[in-house]
């Protein structure tokens, strides 16, 4: 019998290699496929900066490339944040929406959509970030701050209270969104529901830069947080006895997740599933060690969102599916398959 540890080390290498190749392939795929068919040679020429006849060069440089980059960054951010939260809550089924970020962002976006008809046109976009995105970001941050404040007392942050508070805040946000929907007209309603399904159609280079910078910050935090998160899985008291400053660790995780998910939601609406399932799938593959889990989750999230977005753009071309629906459609069956297989093995 091969031991689990040795098997995991082997899987780790396979997984890293497979995901890197998949990332390359899905990125190229995202550039190749779209509502307009472009020959691979043209794509290559456009990428190295050779002028192409007509608008082909524009399609690659101004539409597909920023969109593919944004998809990869947002997917990686969501997956890392999901892994952070699952470690923090010591629950492999935790999800960024659990602490109310997504619901809060939803309220912020809805407010902006309802008010934005008058305000938005007056102010215009801020560096490529629309007012709706800004509203979503602020809404997400306010809810996380609220959840965190209530859950933090003299004895430190209670993870259980945070979970319950997340549910309460999500319920409150849902009713607020419902109220806004009640007052919205048909056009606004459609924008709200589309926003909630998530989409990367607003991709632009400023957005790519924003997401890219945030991803770099998250990745830089990974080596320091990975080991500490491993001890946290044993329990807070146990982690403290292993010399970890647990309160500081929790605060850092919450800040990173709030910034990460808040930004991701602001840039691309609420894309469910990536943060929940990617870390979970990677964990089934290489085990729960965060030093392996976090970087591999980033890769996995980028691949999943790239594939999902390419599918969303091409399936009903020239119309587009909301990418949030596609992520669930692509990922859920794979997840169920993994769960079943692992259950049979153990």
């Amino acid at each position, binding site marked *: 019998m091969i031991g*689990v*540890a040795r098997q*995991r080390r082997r899987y780790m290498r396979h997984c890293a290699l497979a995901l890197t190749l998949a990332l390359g392939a899905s990125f190229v795929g995202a550039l190749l496929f779209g509502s307009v068919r472009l020959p691979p040679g043209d794509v290559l020429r456009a990428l190295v900066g050779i002028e192409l006849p007509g608008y082909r060069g524009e399609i690659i440089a101004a539409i597909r490339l920023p969109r593919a980059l944004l998809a990869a960054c947002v997917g990686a951010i969501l997956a890392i944040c999901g892994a952070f939260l699952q470690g923090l809550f010591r629950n*492999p089924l935790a999800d960024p929406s659990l602490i109310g970020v997504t619901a809060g962002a939803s309220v912020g976006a809805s407010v902006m959509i309802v008010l934005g008809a008058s305000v938005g046109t007056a102010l215009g976009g801020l560096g490529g970030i629309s007012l709706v995105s800004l509203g979503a970001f602020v809404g997400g941050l306010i809810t996380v701050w609220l959840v965190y404040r209530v859950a933090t007392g003299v004895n430190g942050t209670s993870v259980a209270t945070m979970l319950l508070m997340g549910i309460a805040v999500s319920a409150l946000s849902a009713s607020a969104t419902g109220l806004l929907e009640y007052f919205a007209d048909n056009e606004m309603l459609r924008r709200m529901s589309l926003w909630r399904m998530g989409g990367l159609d607003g991709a632009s280079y400023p957005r790519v830069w924003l997401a890219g910078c945030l991803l770099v910050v998250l990745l830089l935090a990974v080596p320091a947080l990975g080991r500490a998160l491993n001890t946290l899985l044993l*329990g807070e*008291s146990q982690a403290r006895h*292993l*010399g970890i400053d647990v309160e500081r660790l929790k605060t850092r995780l919450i800040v990173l997740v709030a910034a990460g998910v808040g930004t991701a939601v602001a840039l691309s609406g609420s894309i469910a599933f990536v943060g929940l399932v990617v870390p979970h799938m990677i964990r089934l593959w290489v085990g729960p*060690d965060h030093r392996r889990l976090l970087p591999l989750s980033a890769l996995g999230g980028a691949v999943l969102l790239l594939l999902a977005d390419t599918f969303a753009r091409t399936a009903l071309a020239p119309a587009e599916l909301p990418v949030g629906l596609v992520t669930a459609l692509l990922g859920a069956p794979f997840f169920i398959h993994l769960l079943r297989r692992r259950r049979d093995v153990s």
Partner: protein
Amino acid sequence: MTLLNGDKLTLCIDDRPLVRAVSLAVRPGEVLAIIGPNGAGKTTLLRALSGDLTPTEGQVTFNGRALADWPARERALALAVLTQANSLTFGFTVAEVVSLGRTPHSTGAVVDHRVCRAAMKALDVLHLAERAYPSLSGGEQQRVQLARVMAQIWRPDGEADRLLLLDEPVTSLDLGHQRQLMQAVRDFADSGVGVVMVVHDISLAAAYSDHLLALKDGAGVAYGRPEQVVTEAQISDLFDSPVRVIAHPDTGKPVVLAN
């Protein structure tokens, strides 16, 4: 020099005193067992000694310095704690769980690996090293957790003397593994580590400890060598239940028999 010193420790939670003016001292190489009925304050006292709780009155001194003054990581190099609840739902392997004990150290992978193997061997879990932790039985998990905290302070890394705090380490173990675990703890103590543990089985505590501390309603009612503490009068009084105490035919240590 005493390794751990508790001076008239009192702990109140919601104004209710759970531990009242308990004093104790542990030297390197010494095993102290805390005994007493359920709800006597044994775990609360242990949590005060580990720094999880701050005493309402009195002070805990570790290596000549107030416990609260130790930086977390430096303290973790010399003080390891095994708490009662150790739930871990994530599928770490046994070897990975034990190696978490090396987190505060920066001794390098080779030393860490050697230490973890030695600790696993001492607790008879080396053959489980590659198994997934959640798939083990309760008793096996308990031994793995003990291996983890032992690996944490396996070698003296630094000036400070080492201390191991264990909350009911042998509960849920079978007879053979109870003995084996206590012997491992004893051997570990003989290498110069101070040990304080909460134990329910008084005969077991008497057989492997240098000193016993009996708690009742939060107060220390007896403190001394096993023969001094484990007497028929004191144990009967401690548990409000008549017992007989006989000497073990081979070791001469006191053995408690319920009437």
